[in-house]
């Protein structure tokens, strides 16, 4: 059962609540680490000509502070809430893929430890949290520091992507009967939007990091101007991720605040649909504003104007939300408890960060403020004043549900006022420092600059923040030891989690609830008549059978360990990477057969899912959407560098159209064999299934043979990864595609073996259908590559 106790129980748990607690505790520890780094930074800057730390150490501290707070603290604190609360709020017994949920936690933990292990080797990353090229090139960062950073971020990206697919499927497909989209709690909505941002934004930084990896390890020149590369490519790929990342950090806080305010104002959220649509718009616009981080690089007037306009537009839905929150409070029967304090603090502080953000949207103003402390003030008002205040509101709001005990309201309010005072004392003076010309990332300054008074105030403020966090820790420990029992519904809550005991039982709900209202629990308590169901959304029937919960599994931690070893091997020895890869593959295969065979682990019956869709297929389509962004980033890199090689061989001299036409034909026809295989499995034609599955894999192998021949020929003719930009972009794009084909061939051969053992009947058709989707996807990617690279030269 998922409730197994002891350390083994925690290591093998797949219970979303336990995983949520693991995320929360781990992220809070990393938050303390990042906070200590910030305190040392502030100590160094408190006085002019200070020597608390060296310049090198200072670079490491601000790099690791930013990286830690964003990737290891604020993001996973949001994930802690997603994990613990989403199933409870939508009336589900767990997430769609419990073992994947555990995997995402262990990969996150290992990625965080890997990143921070750099301190032990005296090689902490030191090029800033956004690692601008070409500071990160081997020439300027010869040691392993940047390798720790890029490999750590790649590992953490795996964790975020896995969690993203999981929660998309969970929210789309596991809502309780009657919980239509417009009855979802706003926190669930913001979580859903955040997951889409994650799965669409992380592939671009993944590509950017891979290109950096190739530059550092294989001598390519993606970011090296000496061979025609352009450091701005990194900035584009980074900020294509980095700006949506801002919303990945802030939308969960917006969701939390949207839950807290109505509860403590004792009236429904004002303009629920507008708040939801504003969140969607923020997510959508979030992909169109990345270059406002790059106004000073000389993009040109048209680009600057377009990105400036888009940035100002994104302020509209944000402002709309703020008005809705204020209108929720207006006329409410306010209960001034700690969660409300933090929620109101969020509104005020985030508003200030938003206002300075609007200033940055104007290119002429931004050019004056770029790389000054004004920007440091802005981003902290958004990410501390916004995200952190929102997260604290959530901690104080849901702590009783998670622990069964109340936190002290008196200490909570002391925590709030100290944090509010400390936060403003720390970051408001940075506006003045920026306007006085103090650049960010300098490790000291001379006394004649006149920056000392504000820096001193800022440092004192930082220590006040530390005291406020200490008060929270005292409050938490006191609550866990002897806090007053919370009961199931201490706040007169509105949403389903408050119908459960605190903490909830392992299986969450004795009976899957049926939802008839947006504020379901309030409606039940006030005996409101049911709202009419939405016309086009299915309302599935409650489960007629008993409670099925997945058993604990240790394969998630095995696979995560394999992924960690792959990263460690890149720093130590390739053999370690190979060992890690083998361990991960072993873990995946054992995982697949853990319940007696692939697909045998109680997949949710379709009639019980919210959309009537298979979880695996829904998740896989979300994965393919993410893959679109991955290959788009690679194709965009190829197209951006097209014709910019400084030396040959050039495409028209080397590409072999007749040969590639044949391999293209083979791959296209493999897609035909794939659909024939699926049709055979669906109708129970075992011979046909074996034949067509093997045929598809065989055609894939032929395609790979053609690709290997082509690569060897090109190398003989002088085209290598290092020789020019064409070689680098060509080999990386087609190489990643080939790697995808290789994975597909292995997958198909695995299914073929199952078919040979007569373990692939019509009931297992979904396994083949999902593999088929993957196979067809690599086919259509090749269709694009064949046209864009080979035919349009």
């Amino acid at each position, binding site marked *: 059962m998922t409730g197994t106790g002891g350390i083994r129980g925690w290591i093998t748990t797949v219970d979303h609540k336990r995983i949520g607690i693991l995320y929360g505790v781990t992220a809070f520890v990393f938050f303390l680490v990042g906070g200590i780094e910030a305190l040392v930074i502030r100590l160094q800057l408190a006085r002019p000509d200070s020597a608390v730390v060296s310049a090198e150490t200072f670079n490491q501290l601000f790099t690791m502070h930013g990286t830690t707070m964003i990737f290891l603290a604020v993001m996973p604190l949001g994930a802690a809430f997603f994990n613990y609360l989403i199933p409870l709020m939508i009336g589900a017994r767990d997430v769609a893929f419990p073992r994947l949920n555990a995997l995402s936690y262990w990969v996150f933990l290992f990625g965080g430890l890997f990143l921070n292990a750099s301190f032990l080797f005296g090689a902490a990353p030191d090029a800033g949290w956004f690692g601008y090229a070409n500071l990160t090139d081997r020439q300027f960062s010869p040691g392993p520091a940047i390798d720790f950073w890029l490999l750590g971020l790649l590992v953490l990206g795996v964790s975020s992507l896995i969690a993203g697919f999981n929660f*998309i499927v969970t929210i*789309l497909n596991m809502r309780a009967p009657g919980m239509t989209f417009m009855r979802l709690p706003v926190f669930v909505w913001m979580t859903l939007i955040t997951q889409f941002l994650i799965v*669409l934004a992380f592939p671009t930084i993944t590509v950017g990091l891979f290109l950096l990896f190739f530059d550092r390890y294989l001598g390519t020149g993606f970011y090296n101007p000496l061979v025609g590369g*352009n450091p701005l*490519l990194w900035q*584009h790929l980074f900020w*294509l991720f980095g700006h949506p990342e801002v919303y990945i950090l802030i939308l969960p806080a917006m969701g939390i605040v949207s839950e807290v305010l109505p509860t403590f104002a004792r009236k429904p959220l004002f303009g629920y649909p507008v708040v939801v649509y504003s969140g969607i718009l923020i997510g959508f616009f979030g*992909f169109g504003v990345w270059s406002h981080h790059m106004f000073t690089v000389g*993009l040109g007037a048209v*680009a600057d104007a377009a990105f400036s306009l888009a940035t100002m537009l994104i302020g509209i839905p944000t402002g709309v939300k703020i008005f809705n929150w204020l209108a929720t409070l207006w006329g409410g029967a306010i209960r001034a408890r700690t969660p409300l304090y933090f929620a109101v603090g969020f509104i005020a502080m985030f508003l200030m960060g938003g206002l300075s953000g609007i200033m940055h949207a104007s290119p002429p103003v931004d050019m004056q403020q770029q790389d000054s402390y004004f920007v440091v003030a802005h981003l902290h008002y958004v990410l501390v004043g916004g995200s952190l205040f929102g997260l604290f509101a959530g901690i104080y709001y849901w702590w009783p549900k998670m622990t069964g005990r109340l936190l002290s309201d008196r200490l909570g309010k002391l925590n709030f006022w100290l944090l509010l005072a400390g936060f403003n004392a720390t970051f408001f003076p940075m506006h003045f420092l920026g306007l006085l010309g103090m650049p960010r990332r300098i490790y000291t300054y001379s006394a004649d600059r006149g920056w000392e008074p504000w820096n001193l105030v800022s440092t004192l403020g930082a220590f006040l923040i530390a005291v406020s966090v200490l008060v929270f820790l005292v409050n938490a420990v006191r609550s866990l030891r002897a806090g007053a029992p919370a009961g199931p519904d201490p706040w007169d809550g509105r949403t389903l989690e408050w119908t459960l005991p605190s903490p909830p039982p392992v299986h969450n709900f004795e009976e899957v609830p049926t939802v008839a209202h947006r504020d379901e629990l309030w409606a039940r308590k006030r005996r409101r008549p049911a709202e009419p169901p939405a016309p086009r959304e299915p309302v599935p029937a409650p489960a007629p059978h008993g409670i099925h919960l997945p058993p604990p599994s240790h394969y998630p931690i095995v696979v995560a360990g394999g992924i960690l070893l792959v990263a460690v091997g890149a720093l130590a020895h390739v053999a370690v990477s190979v060992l890690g890869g083998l361990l991960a593959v072993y873990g995946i295969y054992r995982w697949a057969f853990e319940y007696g065979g692939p697909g045998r682990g109680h997949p949710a*019956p*379709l009639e019980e899912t919210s*959309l*009537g*869709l298979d979880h695996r*297929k*829904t998740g896989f*389509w979300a994965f*393919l*959407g*993410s893959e*679109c*962004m991955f*290959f*788009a*980033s690679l194709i*965009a890199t190829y*197209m*951006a*560098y*097209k*014709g910019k090689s400084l030396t040959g061989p050039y495409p028209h001299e080397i590409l072999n*159209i*007749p040969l590639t*036409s044949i391999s*293209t*034909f083979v791959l*296209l*026809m493999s*897609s*035909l064999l794939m659909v*024939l295989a699926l*049709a055979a499995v*669906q*109708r129970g034609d075992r011979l046909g299934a074996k034949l067509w599955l093997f045929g598809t894999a065989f055609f894939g192998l032929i395609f790979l043979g053609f690709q290997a021949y082509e690569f060897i020929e090109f190398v003989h003719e002088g085209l290598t990864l290092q020789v020019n930009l064409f070689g680098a972009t060509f080999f990386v794009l087609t190489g990643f595609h080939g790697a995808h084909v290789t994975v597909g061939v292995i997958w198909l051969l695995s299914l073929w073996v199952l078919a040979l053992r007569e373990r692939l009947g019509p*009931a*297992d*058709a*979904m396994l083949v*259908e999902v593999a*088929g*989707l993957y196979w*067809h996807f690599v*086919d*259509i990617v090749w*269709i*694009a590559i*064949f*046209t864009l690279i080979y*035919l349009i030269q």
Partner: protein
Amino acid sequence: MTEPAHEIHPPIRAYLVIAAVLAVITAVEVAVFYITWLARFLVPILLVLSAAKFALVAMFFMHLRSDSRVFSGLFAGPLAIAIAIILVLMALFGAFVVGRP
């Protein structure tokens, strides 16, 4: 449990027809590449043909035409953003500037 896929997916003969069409379009693409008097129109012709192949595989082999609209949304939304990003990055790197080296 699986969906009653055989009821909503095309019959085998339709798959064979689609495969034949894909093969013909590929042949036309390669032929167009070698026809010198079409050089001026090469790019738009190839993009249209490539898009047609892409759509055929996605709609029929991946069953988007007959499957849930949710799947179409999960794929087409990101695809649209992906294409927009390629075009914007190409523009920002001067790929559409006439006469660039």
